[in-house]
């Protein structure tokens, strides 16, 4: 007899079970092989994503040297060349250009194959001599055309030199620099010219690049040689080496870095360090790849852990199936032992079958792993990333196959070690629920140890990620034991109460080991799924929150606004309800000063994205940004202004000085409606000071400050007392005068209070005059004394965002004022009135001020400030209308960013990809649990059918037995799902702090680990529904075996 044929007959005899074992074996092999395969793919994707999110120049390499020939000598050679696309040799230098109608500065640049890459809209490519191409946009902006002559002066290097007259041979269309060829060199713009303000002299104009062919470059070099310009070269010769993001992976990145090192070595060999003519190699690849490495390390920690978890679940399922298979073969094992076979030999045929199945599923399992990874790569990872066959993948698959065989050996040997008499028993032994098996005990001990380490040790260790699985195993084992105990009690109680269906269900469950195993597995699988869904949802919420808080709002439009007041006005007109758009000015001073965010306090809560609701400040806190009892602003309209004074005393405060005080004057600082400032100066003498013309106050001006102005050069210490009886305005010189109320003395305050207290500025104040009006008192040592009307506080109220916001200054108000900058870039101080966790877009260490007050306290220009408009929602129609209104008002939008775009960047990162794998693992685990329920029903239905048939013979109706089986099945599923869901939530809470949500830690906003209850409940219900379906199917399978014929046949 051929034992092999007998084995095959046995496999065929139990075809269903053999197929299931094969499927499970295949799944286990696939799970273990897919782990390293997907992890490798994620690592590749991390590099690819990192590089694709950076510019061509950033991920490329630029070699610079003193001549084109030298640059060529440094270029990659041999195998290094394959890492780059074709190098582009280039040349550039700075020139000053004088044309017929304009003068401007420009870059003169040349590149290989220039004319082949340009679209020439007029004229032709430069042919010979000194000919250049001008961009069509510069041509329009600077009134330069084809055929024009340009006088060129070289500016690069240490001295200017004469180049000569170049002819414009053609115009080129502005191009997108973000291509491998142009290498992010922004030689052209849509505007064609950039203006550089230079104060009182005319703005300096910068045109788009003048492009040259080699002939032009030679002309430049010739001019340079004939000139006796400075010592350093004005020319930059370089080679741009683009690195295609799609071609760079883990292995190629190493070779790439080696290639850069080789270039550096060639430069070192040609020019020792310190040589001024030494070339250089520039690349940001090293920091970029280091950043990608951080993501790769995270995926290396997370994905294998998940794969191991899944493989363990699959192996447990496989173990249970093998155990059931061994149980089914007990009669065969008994026969073999009865016929004199040794314990080892008796297990041989079954182990042979398992070996055949496992060996046969090795290749399909690896194929399944590849297919699964390929699908995941297509769905989740950047295009071009595919699974790779590597040794760890094959080793993983083979290792699982060996473990499967070892598992079968263990279980089969354990069975054959039993006495033959026990093997020959026809009634299955009762599950007593006592005496946990050694394997279960070992598993429980490992789980307890793991949880202890996870909770007490390094919370960021990989073992913390195993916490959900470990807790689930513990809970599952415990639940299995408790369930048997509970089922037995419930069964007996129901029996006494006459509820036979429940009694049969409880007692059957209590005597079947598979009930406990299925319960444990369902608990573990549901816990893994719920935990992974919770972690996935929490990480998604955190990604959304961080993206929103970092961008500032759903949409942020960066604009070029002439003044903050105009921007505010346009936005207010476009969104009168104030629930959609918000003007924001961000001042980012140089140095260590804190950035300042100026926003409308009423709109901030509505429009800004704070990430989490917990971080949204109360409106009451934001209202502190504007003092509650500030006086109404002094607003008037007119063309003429006059001052009525009573007495005006200016006396020396220095008895040692023989000098007499010089006359003083008053200067009124006025703010126009558009935010611009104007001043008017009035002499000080008793009586009515004649009218002074006002500029730009026809639409209304606000009096913000009154300054006492000393005569230039007069530094005598003086005491001043000027009685202001009134201020009048008139629409014309001959018109009637209207009084302007100046308010009470308490409405004014020294604008230089802190400095005055330190003795470095004049002291000044208003008091109420004896005959009405105000009396200005001042003590000045030559400096001006300024009284500020308190409709705008001297120190703007501000909220401090996070630690390190602002530098403390002096204040006599109790709380120290903070030195900062106004939105005009001028130094200022603000008075902290509260604190916030952070500010959207600027983060921590920043200050928040009210935009209205910030505008009132600053000059109109926005030096170093960024103007932007934050939009609450993505609403293309409203956004288009707003943009049109902005454009009409002369405020172009320069950039647009959205929270969704930022979110998608975070979605395309290793932590997000890794946690998705957890989701897949959880799903597979639950599917396996459902499969296990069916498998157990299929494999045990004969013995269960025997029991039920016996009950049937005793007179129990089939309907009752049907109910009993269904209750038994559903009981296990329900208990397992409930416990699994609870354990999954708890496990996720423990594991989340260890889970990397981002490549770089999120400090703003701080991560939130709140359980995603809707998702958890939804998934738990879904798992319950799926497993209930499996339970119903199992019930049907078992009931099909209930027939009196079973009793006659025996088991």
């Amino acid at each position, binding site marked *: *007899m051929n*034992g092999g044929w*007998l084995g095959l*007959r*046995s496999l*065929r*005899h139990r075809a269903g079970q053999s197929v299931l074992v094969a499927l499970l074996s295949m799944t286990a092999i696939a799970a273990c092989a897919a782990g390293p395969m997907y992890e490798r793919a994620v690592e590749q994707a991390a590099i690819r994503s990192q590089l694709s999110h950076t510019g061509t120049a950033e991920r490329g390499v630029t070699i610079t040297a003193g001549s084109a020939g030298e640059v060529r000598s440094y270029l990659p050679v041999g195998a290094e060349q394959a890492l780059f696309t074709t190098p582009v040799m280039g040349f550039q230098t700075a020139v000053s250009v004088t044309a017929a109608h304009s003068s401007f500065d420009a870059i003169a640049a040349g590149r290989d194959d220039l004319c082949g890459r340009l679209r020439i809209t007029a004229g032709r490519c430069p042919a010979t001599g000194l000919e250049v191409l001008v961009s069509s946009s510069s041509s329009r902006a600077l009134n330069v055309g084809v055929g024009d002559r340009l006088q060129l002066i070289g500016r690069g290097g240490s001295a200017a030199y004469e180049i000569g007259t170049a002819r414009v041979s053609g115009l080129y269309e502005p191009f997108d620099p973000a291509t491998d060829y142009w290498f992010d060199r922004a030689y052209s713009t849509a505007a064609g010219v950039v203006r550089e303000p230079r104060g009182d002299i005319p703005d300096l104009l910068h045109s788009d690049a003048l492009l040259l062919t080699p002939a032009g470059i030679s002309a430049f070099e010739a001019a340079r040689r004939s000139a006796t310009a400075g010592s350093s070269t004005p020319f930059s010769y370089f080679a741009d080496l683009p690195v295609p993001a799609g071609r760079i992976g883990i292995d190629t990145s190493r070779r790439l870095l080696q290639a850069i090192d080789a270039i550096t070595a060639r430069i070192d060999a040609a020019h020792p360090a310190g040589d001024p003519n030494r070339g250089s190699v520039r690349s940001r690849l090293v920091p970029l790849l280091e950043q990608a490495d951080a993501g790769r390390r995270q995926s290396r920690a997370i994905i294998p852990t998940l794969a191991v978890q899944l493989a363990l679940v699959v192996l447990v399922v496989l173990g249970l199936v093998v155990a059931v298979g061994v149980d089914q073969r007990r*009669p*065969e094992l008994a*026969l*073999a*032992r*009865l*016929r*004199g*076979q*040794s314990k080892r*030999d008796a297990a041989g045929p079954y182990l042979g079958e398992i070996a055949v199945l496992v060996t046969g599923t090795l290749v399909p399992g690896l194929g399944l792993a590849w297919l699964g990874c390929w699908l995941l790569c297509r769905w989740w990872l950047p295009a071009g990333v595919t699974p790779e066959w590597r040794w760890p993948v094959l080793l993983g698959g083979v290792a699982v196959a060996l473990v499967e065989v070892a598992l079968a050996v263990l279980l089969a040997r354990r069975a054959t070690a039993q*006495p*033959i*008499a026990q093997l*020959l028993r*026809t009634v299955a032994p009762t599950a007593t629920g006592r005496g946990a098996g050694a394997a279960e005990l070992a598993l429980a001990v490992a789980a307890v140890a793991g949880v202890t380490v996870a909770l007490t040790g390094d919370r960021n260790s990989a073992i913390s990620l195993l916490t959900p699985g470990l807790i689930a195993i513990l809970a599952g084992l415990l639940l299995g034991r408790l369930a048997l105990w509970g089922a037995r009690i419930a069964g007996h109680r129901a029996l006494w109460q006459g509820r036979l269906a429940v009694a049969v269900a409880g007692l059957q469950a209590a005597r079947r080991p598979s009930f406990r195993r299925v319960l444990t597995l369902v608990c573990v699988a549901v816990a893994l799924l719920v935990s992974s869904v919770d972690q996935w949802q929490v990480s998604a919420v955190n990604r959304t929150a961080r993206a929103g808080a970092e961008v500032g709002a759903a949409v942020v439009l960066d604009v070029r606004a002439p003044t903050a007041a105009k921007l505010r006005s346009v936005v207010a007109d476009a969104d009168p309800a104030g629930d959609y758009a918000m003007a924001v000015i961000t001042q980012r001073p140089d140095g260590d000063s804190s950035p300042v965010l100026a926003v409308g306090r009423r709109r901030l809560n509505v429009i800004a994205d704070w990430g989490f609701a917990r971080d949204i400040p109360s409106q009451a806190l934001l209202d502190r940004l504007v003092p509650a009892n500030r006086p109404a602003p002094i607003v008037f309209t007119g063309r003429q202004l006059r001052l009525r004074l009573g007495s005006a005393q200016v006396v020396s405060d220095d008895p040692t000085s023989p000098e007499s005080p010089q006359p003083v004057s008053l200067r009124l600082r006025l703010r126009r409606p558009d935010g611009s400032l104007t001043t008017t100066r009035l002499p000080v003498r008793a009586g009515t000071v004649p009218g002074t013309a006002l500029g730009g106050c026809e639409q209304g001006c606000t009096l913000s400050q009154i300054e006492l102005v000393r005569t230039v050069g007069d530094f005598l210490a003086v005491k001043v007392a000027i009685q202001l009886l009134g201020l009048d305005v008139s629409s014309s010189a001959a018109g009637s005068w209207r009084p302007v109320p100046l308010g009470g003395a308490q409405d004014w305050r020294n604008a230089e209070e802190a400095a005055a207290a330190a003795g470095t500025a004049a002291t000044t104040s208003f008091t109420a005059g004896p005959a009405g009006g105000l009396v200005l008192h001042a003590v000045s040592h030559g400096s001006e004394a300024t009284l500020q009307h308190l409709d705008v506080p001297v120190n703007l109220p501000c909220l401090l965002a996070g630690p390190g916001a602002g530098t403390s200054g002096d204040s006599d108000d109790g709380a120290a004022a903070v030195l900062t900058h106004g939105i005009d870039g001028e130094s200022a101080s603000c008075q902290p009135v509260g604190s916030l966790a952070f500010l959207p877009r600027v983060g921590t260490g920043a200050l928040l001020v009210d935009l209205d007050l910030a505008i009132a306290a600053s000059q109109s220009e926005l030096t170093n400030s960024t103007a932007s408009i934050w939009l609450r929602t993505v609403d293309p129609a409203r956004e288009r209308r707003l943009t049109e209104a902005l454009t009409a008002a002369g405020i172009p939008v320069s950039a647009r960013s959205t929270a969704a775009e930022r979110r998608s960047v975070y979605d395309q990162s290793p932590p997000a990809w890794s946690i998705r794998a957890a989701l897949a693992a959880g799903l597979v685990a639950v599917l396996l649990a459902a499969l296990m329920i069916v498998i157990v029903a299929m494999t045990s239905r004969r013995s269960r059918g025997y029991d039920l048939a016996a009950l049937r013979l005793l007179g129990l109706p089939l309907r009752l037995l049907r109910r009993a089986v269904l209750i038994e099945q559903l009981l296990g599923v329900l208990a397992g799902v409930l416990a699994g869901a609870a354990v999954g939530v708890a496990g996720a809470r423990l594991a989340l702090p260890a889970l990397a949500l981002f490549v770089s830690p999120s400090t703003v906003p701080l991560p939130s680990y709140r359980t995603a209850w809707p998702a958890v409940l939804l998934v738990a219900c879904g798992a319950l529904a799926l497993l209930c379906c499996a339970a119903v199917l199992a019930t049907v399978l078992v009931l099909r075996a209930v027939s009196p014929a079973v009793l006659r*046949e*025996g088991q």
Partner: protein
Amino acid sequence: MAGVRRGLSVSAHGLVHIYRLEGNDVVALTSVDLEVPAGQLVGLLGPSGSGKSTLITLLAGVQRPSAGRLRVGEHDLAVMEDADLDRLRAIEVGAVLQGAVRNLLSYASPAQNVAFAQKAARRLGAWELPRPTEVLDLLSLADCAHHRLVELTPGQLQRLAVAVGMATLPGLLLTDEPTSQLDHRYRDEVLQAIGSVNRSVGTTVITVTHDPEVAARMPRTITIRDGRIGAEGHGGEDFAVLGRDGSLQLPPDVREQIPPGTLLRVQLNPDGTVLLDPRPGRDPRPGRDPRPDRDPRPGRPAGGLPGAAP
């Protein structure tokens, strides 16, 4: 036929077997004395739970006796190592379990089943084994050597089970209820086959049966009651067996007449007969007269004692 062996004798002296059931010790066999010469065909009778199957499992080396001596041929089963017991089952003792299908691999053909039963013997070096078809021929199953089991009749299945037990032509064949669940035709087939094996091979056969008709066909029957040898039958007549310790089990019909606890006067008559005379007195059972039908003549019991014949 290759590999034919002589029958093995069986000998048990003071055999005791105790097993644990739900925490309690249960005495299955107590002080069993038995001698079966080689080549004998013996029927083992007795009510359910009397210990017949236990005796069979002990003889098959599946269980070990708790006390006493048990020999099969030259082998003392009480002291044999596990490996030696394996070898015994592989070559020298064949066992047929109750229920034909329990002895068979349902997916294998009759020939493969026999070959499976020979596997251990081959591994142990018993090369002179008969071919499976020869064994099947012995049981008149040669024609269906390669049939599927579902194609066999119940009688053929049971004969196949016997063939599997006889796969190595052992010296001792133990069969447990080989004719249960069979109608008369198939029962006769099986009994004929067993008898044929016994005659042609010389194998000692011990068969457990409940069926009196089967027992009647056995040249020797041994009845076990309450874990002891209760009686032996020879040629259709039952005899009480005097134990090595002098104990004697009365037949059931006598025990019905004389309640437990009754004192018997044992009297050996000059003609060699033994008289068991109940002592006059009260029935130990409450409210019962121990001898309601007592013969008024002094010194005579109410009826004869069938088990006390000389």
